[in-house]
Structure formats: structure tokens, C-alpha cells
């Protein structure tokens, strides 16, 4: 008889993190819509507060429904633990602020989601955390930008809307040689297509709002700790993890919790003090999406490949940006890191600039015009005037966002219907 084996992706997506409720037999994850949880005794109360016994205290710090989602995502990513947050932006903020303080520096890809770009460019500098942005395709640029006070390297696994693919093994090598963790936003790849930790990333963040939730109903984010980074023995100093912390009775997270120092601090300080926790109901809704993540991502990816191929051959299209296109600069890298598909967010430049782009979008029927990606339904938006409108012309240029650029998030409708809708809108836009 064969020995035991780790469970597969789809099995974990359905079952991970949940023991069916012993009192009721509930098969679905119950929604524990409770702010606080009873203690049996003073000893139990004090011990739970002090991280001396397992159990729940208050739902801002931890909640049983949210914990199922956290553990499930940690399992799917191959991480040692996870903390769920109110949104993807909250997860990015939590990742950075768990390591950084006044005087800290971040090296980040210049091709980032607009909200992340705002956080790093304008908001965090108000708190003394600065960022140097570099070409996402140039590991040497990341290395050159590292300073004495750098605390992390940040990139997106698949950038948006340029679809730049992060060379995670090379960036991890750059980061680790400098004694730094590599933090990646893997929202557009999801753990079904890519497991960044297996390629060397140390911390993974997601907007669960997108493909993982998958239905455009619920905001959420998550932070997954790979547990590989040796905070205590790095050549860099990480005082938030390796010095005693007066805010929690003098705990030294690295000394006491070792490889889980980061994720424990993120919960015990970050959720406690910043408070961007996920609600139990949201966690339940997001779990419904997680259950079908594998089969959805397969169809998202196949549909997107078909749409990209269709647009590439259309006369009204100047260029198509998706790694499935052989001309894409990261086509080979994407095939290596994501052999089962490289996501369903793509962009293309329509001939005629902004006015034609606007007409195209307004001519679509099946595609929903809105500021989101990763819904089961197909979506469309004009980045330069919406999601990335806070970027100046230079930054837009560096990110490859032209006036005629249109972003598509390809859903799981019948592909023939999607192509018919696009075909009709392209015709009407040029009329």
C-alpha cells in the first residue's frame, strides 16, 4: 500500500482548514458572526490574550470563519500561515508595515496596480517609508536600488495592465543575496496558476476580491507567509521581528516563534492596531469562490488565450498584451512559471486613441464596464482615465499605458459569445 500523500489542490480548495462542525454537523463552513468568544475561566481568558493558549478572543484579531479561509489559502499557497484582511490593499499595507517603519525603504516594480502605486508613492512617504520604483523586467535594477535601509522588495507576479511577469527566481535571488524578503502580489495568478513561495518568494499577498473570490461580490485580502525567510540570521536587521516589542509584553517574535515570526506579528500587531480585519460573512462568501478556483482559473485562462489570439489578428488592434502571445516579452518566462495558464487579465491598444477606445467600450454588451478584474463575468475598463489616472504622464508611459489602451478581464462565459461581442464592438468603434 502506498504511503500517505499531501492532498491535492482541488481537494484543499474544498476542504482545507475546516473540520465539519461537531455540534451541528454543518457541512458548509459556519458563519461565526460574533465579535467575541466566551472564556471558560480567568486562566483561559488571560492565556488567550497572551498567546499562551489556542483559541479565539475577539474577531478583529481572529475569527473561526475567517481562520478557515486563512488556513485554506496558506495550504493552497504552500505557506505556513496566513492573515486575512478587509481588502487586498489592506494586505499590502499590512505586509509592508509589519516590517517597515519611519526611515525604511522599499524597492518596487514600477508596474503596479494603481492603488498600490498610490500607497507607495504618496501615502507611505507621509509616514517616513519611501520607495524606489524600477523596471519590473530588470533584476539588476532591483539590486541597484537597494539601500542600507531597504526592508523588502515588492512586485506583482503578473502586472496590470502590461502583463509583465515577475521573474520570481531571479528576484528572490537578488533579494536574498541582499538579506531581504521578496514580497509578491499574486492576485492575477492565484495559487492555481502559480505558487510563488515554491519559486523563492517569501511573502505572498492577494486581493481575494478578484479571481479567488471570483464573483465580484466581496472585498477581501490575504497575506501568506512562506516561512522560509530567516529573520534573525539575515544580514539585515528586522527590529519589528527580532527585537523585543513593548506593545506585547516584550515578546521577541523571532526568538519565540521562529519561522512564523512575521505572520504572528502581522496578526498580533497589525490586525490589532490597524484593524483592517475581514468579516466572518465576507470570509464565508470568499470561501465559496475558493472552492471552485481551480476549474474557474482553467476556463478563465483558456478563454483569455482565445480572446488574445482573436484580437492579435484584428485590423483595428495595434498591439495585444498577454503572455500567451508569442511576441510578448515574457512569453517564455510565463510558460516556465505558469505552465497551466498565465491569467485572464489582458490589454490591447485600439487604433484611434481615446475616443475610439471609449466608443468600443460603450459598444460592448457582455463585457461589464467597471473597475474590477477577476469576476466570473467579463469586464472592461480604460486604465489611463480610471484605475491609473493618478499617475503622471511619465509614470503612465513607463507602465505602458497609452490613451488607446483597453484592459479586459476575461470571464468564463462561452468563448464564442465573447468573441462575437468583441468583434461587434470593434466594428462599431471604427465606424
Amino acid at each position, binding site marked *: 500500500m502506498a*504511503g*500517505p*500523500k*499531501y*492532498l491535492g489542490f482541488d481537494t*484543499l480548495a474544498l*476542504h*482545507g*482548514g*475546516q*473540520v465539519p462542525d461537531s455540534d451541528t454537523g454543518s457541512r458548509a463552513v459556519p458563519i461565526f458572526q460574533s465579535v467575541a468568544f466566551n472564556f471558560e475561566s480567568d*486562566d483561559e481568558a*488571560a*492565556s488567550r490574550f*497572551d*498567546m*499562551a*493558549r*489556542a*483559541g*479565539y478572543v475577539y474577531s478583529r*484579531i*481572529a*475569527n*473561526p470563519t*475567517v*481562520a*478557515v479561509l*486563512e*488556513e*485554506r489559502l*496558506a*495550504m493552497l499557497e*504552500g*505557506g*505556513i*500561515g*496566513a*492573515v*486575512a484582511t478587509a481588502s487586498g490593499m489592506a494586505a499590502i499595507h499590512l505586509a509592508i508595515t509589519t516590517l517597515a517603519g519611519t526611515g525604511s525603504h522599499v524597492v518596487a516594480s514600477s508596474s503596479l496596480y494603481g492603488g498600490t502605486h498610490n500607497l507607495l508613492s504618496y501615502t507611505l512617504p507621509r509616514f517616513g517609508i519611501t520607495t524606489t520604483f524600477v523596471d519590473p523586467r530588470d533584476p539588476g535594477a532591483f539590486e541597484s536600488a537597494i539601500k542600507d535601509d531597504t526592508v523588502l522588495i515588492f512586485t506583482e507576479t503578473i502586472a496590470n495592465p502590461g502583463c509583465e511577469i515577475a521573474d520570481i527566481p531571479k528576484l528572490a535571488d537578488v533579494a536574498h543575496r541582499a538579506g531581504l524578503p521578496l514580497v509578491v502580489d499574486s492576485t492575477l495568478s492565484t495559487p492555481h496558476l502559480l505558487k510563488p513561495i515554491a519559486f523563492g518568494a517569501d511573502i505572498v499577498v492577494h486581493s481575494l476580491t478578484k479571481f479567488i473570490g471570483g464573483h465580484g461580490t466581496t472585498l477581501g485580502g490575504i497575506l501568506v507567509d*512562506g*516561512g*522560509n525567510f*530567516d529573520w*534573525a540570521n539575515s544580514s539585515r536587521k528586522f527590529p519589528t521581528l527580532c527585537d523585543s516589542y513593548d506593545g506585547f509584553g516584550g515578546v521577541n517574535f523571532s*526568538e*519565540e*516563534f*521562529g*519561522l*512564523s515570526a512575521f*505572520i504572528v506579528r502581522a*496578526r498580533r500587531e497589525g490586525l490589532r492596531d490597524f484593524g483592517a480585519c475581514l468579516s466572518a460573512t465576507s470570509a464565508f462568501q470568499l470561501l465559496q469562490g475558493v472552492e471552485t478556483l481551480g476549474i474557474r482559473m482553467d476556463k478563465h485562462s483558456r478563454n483569455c488565450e482565445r480572446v488574445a489570439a482573436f484580437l492579435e489578428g484584428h485590423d483595428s488592434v495595434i498591439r495585444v498584451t498577454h503572455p500567451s502571445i508569442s511576441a510578448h516579452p515574457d512569453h517564455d518566462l510565463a510558460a516556465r512559471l505558469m505552465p497551466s495558464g498565465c491569467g485572464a487579465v489582458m490589454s490591447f491598444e485600439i487604433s484611434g486613441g481615446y475616443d475610439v477606445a471609449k466608443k468600443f467600450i460603450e459598444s460592448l454588451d457582455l463585457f461589464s464596464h467597471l473597475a474590477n478584474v477577476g469576476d466570473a463575468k467579463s469586464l472592461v475598463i480604460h486604465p489611463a482615465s480610471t484605475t491609473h489616472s493618478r499617475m503622471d504622464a511619465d509614470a503612465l508611459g513607463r507602465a505602458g499605458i497609452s490613451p488607446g489602451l483597453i484592459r479586459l478581464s476575461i470571464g468564463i462565459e462561452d468563448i464564442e459569445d465573447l468573441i462575437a461581442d468583441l468583434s461587434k464592438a470593434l466594428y462599431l468603434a471604427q465606424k
Partner: protein
Amino acid sequence: MYLKLDDDKIFAAGDMKSRTDSESVIVLLHGAGMDHTFWAYNTRYFLSKGLSVIALDFPGHGNSTGPFLETISEMADWVTACLDLLQADSVALAGHSMGALVALELAGREKERVSRLALLGAGFPMEVSSPLLEAARNDSQAAKDMVVLFGHGSRSYLGGNTIAGMNIMEGALRLLQRSNPGALYNDLNACNEYSNGLEAAKDVGAVTTVICGEQDKMTPVSATAGILEQFVDATLSVIPFSGHMMVSESPELTHRCLVAALLPHV
């Protein structure tokens, strides 16, 4: 805190509080390829009670330097030296797996010093299968996978951990992956070659609790139950649904058993 023993730097999580002569120091010993972080919650609990507690890293493990100790007997000698250094004349001793064998050996030798004994995931002889030992000798990933897969009960494969958000099987795997090369083989080999368990048990004077996971495939309940009669005063506590890694698989139930074993007055 760090201790200096010969030329080696020894790490002990926890603290030595001021205590009366009669108060025992709680000593926690980790298993093969692990370190003090295995006991993180337990250490914090005993400290929060104002007790002296140390969770030692064996040489070459965790934060402790020095060459590996190759036999359970050498490890027991080494723990004794640490206790001497700390002037811990009375101890309540708990060990997990390999640490349980060390605790047993020590308790058999030092009746006066060891007042309470908790053996978690214990069994003797603690035979290690040839494929696992061979894989560990080669420091292969397969050895670490085997320890993780055989070390957890079937329920843990699906998670449902009560420490929110933690993926305990991946955590155990990562701890093994981050151990020093050769540590796992050294430790498993020491367990495999230890043969003094039954004799040591007869010499134990401490009140003893054997804590076993119901689904433990490494030191199964059936094998554990048979050794109880060797002790003067021993009881068996079985943790439902748990495997060999009951401290992380069922932290609250294991905590209660451990407290009952070491602090009967609480």
C-alpha cells in the same frame, strides 16, 4: 536566554524566575529535527504563571551551537549539565518524541531531581523505519516529507487548526527544512538505537503522564499503553484525532494534559 556550556552557546526559551527551593523548573525538550519553537505557546503559558520554564534547543538545533549529540544517553548528560548550570535542583520535565526519550532517560537517572514527568509521543523501543532512516541519512526532502506525513493524524491533512490561520503541516515541514544538515538523521538514529527505555522507566520515581495522539502512526497508542506498567506511577492521556504532533495538532487539549501532568495544583 543563552547559556554557555563548554565552548557552546546554548539557547533556552523562557526564563528562570526567582523561586523557592521547592519550586520545580519546568523543562521542555523538543523532538527530532525540531527546536524550542515547538513549545512556543506552552512556554508562554508557564511563564505567564510566574513559573521558571526553559525550552532547550539541543546542540546544533535552533539557536544552539555545537556538534550534534549522537545518543539519547549523551543528550541526557547534556540536559543534566544544563540543569546543573541553572542550579535547577527540582524539575518538572516534558519531552516530545526524541525529547521524551531523553526525558525518560534523565528521569530514570535522577529520581531526586525530577518530580513530574510528561512523555509526549513516546514509545520504546522507538524504531525508525529503514527507508526513513536512509532518506534522512541522505538529508533528502523525502525524509522530511515522511516525518510530516506520518507524523500527523489524517484530520490534520485537512487543517482545522485552532491557532488561527496557521498551516501546521507546512510549518512542521519548514522547521525540518531549516534544521541544520544532518540534524534529522542524527536524531532519528539516536531514537532508533536507544534501548534503555524499559529499564529507565522502572527507575523513574516521578509521577508520569504519557500523552499520545489517537492517530499516532509513529508511536501508536497500542505500543504506548504497553509500557505504562513499567512505571511506578503513570497514566495515559490520549488526544482524540491527533497524530504524533499533538502539540500543534491539538494545542488546547494537549495543553490541558500537559498542565495536569506538570502542574497538578493548577
